[in-house]
């Protein structure tokens, strides 16, 4: 075979040769901005709808159980469920953002525009996870603002609130990436949401303290990572939690780290993106 001739040394005279590695701001920022713009353009569905759902929970549960149940001394039941509901929405919306963006791009084929670009796995990961966090935070914050019209809520340790928001939303953004990469149809994402995310977040002690559960259920709750995210988050508000806030931090951090690492590995390998 006569191999085509080539030489490797001189570079072409082209004005823009990017560095071959390292994090680049503009491409990453652009993808982040696009992802935010995407959910912003359909805010009725992505922000207003989860807000309404959460407020319904708040009104219905708060009203039905408000006078009768007290979880922590000095904290009304309605106030107690607000942080849990907030975090549940943060988690669900962060997941929904990255997973639906990816599956939509895959199904419609416009994922090619991302694949043709020089964005690397780390840049894609950072941009999409950050956009997921933004969506989670926007929804969570909106719930907080509206809840404050309705009741008094202390925020004793704002830093813990912030830390658990970032870990929870970041981990869920990453998990959404994994689901979006793996899924081939919208159905599969919906299945993921309805059979995994919904039950796990719902049963993570949003509406009750796990201490009030029978021992068997307590044990089961304690293997649910979302329980720790929500418990730690609530600690930020009331300074009270079911388990130590440091344990919550450890579990939440491990959850976010594992999900992030997996998502990054899948992106790097081109899993189901680059055949």
């Amino acid at each position, binding site marked *: *075979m*006569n*191999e*085509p*001739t*080539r*030489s*490797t*040394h*001189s*570079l*072409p005279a*082209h004005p*823009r*040769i*990017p*560095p*071959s*590695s390292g994090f*680049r701001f*503009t*491409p990453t*920022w*652009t*993808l982040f*901005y*696009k992802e935010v*713009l*995407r959910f912003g*353009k*359909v805010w009725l569905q992505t922000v207003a709808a989860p807000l309404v759902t959460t407020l319904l929970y708040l009104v219905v549960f708060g009203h039905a159980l408000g006078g009768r149940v007290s979880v922590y001394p000095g904290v009304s039941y309605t106030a107690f469920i607000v942080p849990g509901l907030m975090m549940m929405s943060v988690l669900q919306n962060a997941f929904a953002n990255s997973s639906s963006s990816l599956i939509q*791009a895959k199904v*419609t*084929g*416009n994922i*090619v*525009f*991302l*694949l*043709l*670009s*020089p*964005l*690397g796995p780390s840049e894609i990961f950072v941009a999409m996870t950050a956009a997921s966090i933004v969506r989670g935070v926007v929804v969570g914050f909106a719930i907080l603002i509206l809840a404050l019209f309705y009741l008094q809520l202390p925020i004793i340790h704002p830093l813990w609130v912030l830390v658990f928001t970032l870990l929870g939303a970041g981990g869920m953004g990453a998990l959404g990436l994994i689901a979006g990469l793996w899924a081939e149809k919208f159905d599969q994402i919906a299945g993921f949401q309805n059979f995994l995310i919904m039950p796990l977040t719902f049963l993570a002690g949003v509406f009750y303290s796990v201490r009030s559960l029978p021992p068997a259920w307590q044990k089961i709750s304690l293997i649910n990572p979302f329980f720790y995210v929500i418990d730690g988050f609530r600690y930020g508000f009331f300074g009270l939690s079911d388990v130590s806030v440091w344990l919550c931090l450890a579990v939440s951090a491990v959850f976010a780290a594992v999900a992030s690492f997996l998502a990054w590995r899948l992106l790097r390998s*081109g899993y189901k993106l*680059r*055949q």
Partner: protein
Amino acid sequence: MSPPPAVWVSGLRKAYASHLALAGVDLAIPEGEFFGLLGPNGAGKSTLINILAGMVQRSSGRAEIFGFDVERDYRRSRQMLGVVPQELAYDPFFTVREFLRLQSGYFGLRRNDDWIDELMAELDLTDKANANLRSLSGGMKRRVLIAQALVHRPPVVVLDEPTAGVDVELRQGLWRFMRRYNREGHTVILTTHYLEEAEELCSRIGILQRGRLIALDAKDHLLARFTWRVLTVTFDKDPGPLPETLAGFLSGAGENTLVLRLDQSRHSLSSVLAALQDLPAQILDLHVQEPDLEDAFTDILGNVGIEQP
């Protein structure tokens, strides 16, 4: 030291499950060339392009853009490359201008509006700048796909069937545009099933079949390999039986017409004409057909088909 070629591919193979889409392709395309990549459906053209673009992972072999490996140095190779994908895709969330700005940003360009405006003007998209991509017709979406490939002024542009489903006017506009882009020193690689398009534009042509490059040559050489001519002669009446000198060339006949096929390199056209004049009928019309790329293409594919049962 010569600069690396715009595209360099060596021993490139791609296997899908059990199917071999590329069976070892060697190809070097120098900077500034207008290259035509031809081949029947399923030959592996898009697979080759998608490997260059990083959308498909090769099974083995090498592929480089300006010396940058498409996987190890993907960031640089993709920055050098603009691709018009074969499938019509669009993002329904955005307008034409938003989309082109986002695409520029992916390539690290923050302020690119001058070039985006020029591209839109050139591709006749200016009045659609603020229209949602969803609302565009198929041909318009195709134009956006072309603009998208050029936002970062790549030195190498690959067009995978850019003129499929495009009207005559745009096709010609597109040809002009691609010629200009090529004249400015950029490398253009075109895949098409319209052979007259390749003949018109490309200076060198590669033909893929079943994952192999079965021909690779300058267009003129490819055409010059086909030295035969087809002569269609119309008479005023039936010319009667042919003399032996002509009978061997006969490839068809109709009412008062004869179709002769002869190899110019071996037979003299003037002696054939003389023999025709000697026939007992008057020649009313004479038509000489030169081989075009389509003939060359069919011929090459046909030969290879026989060699590889």
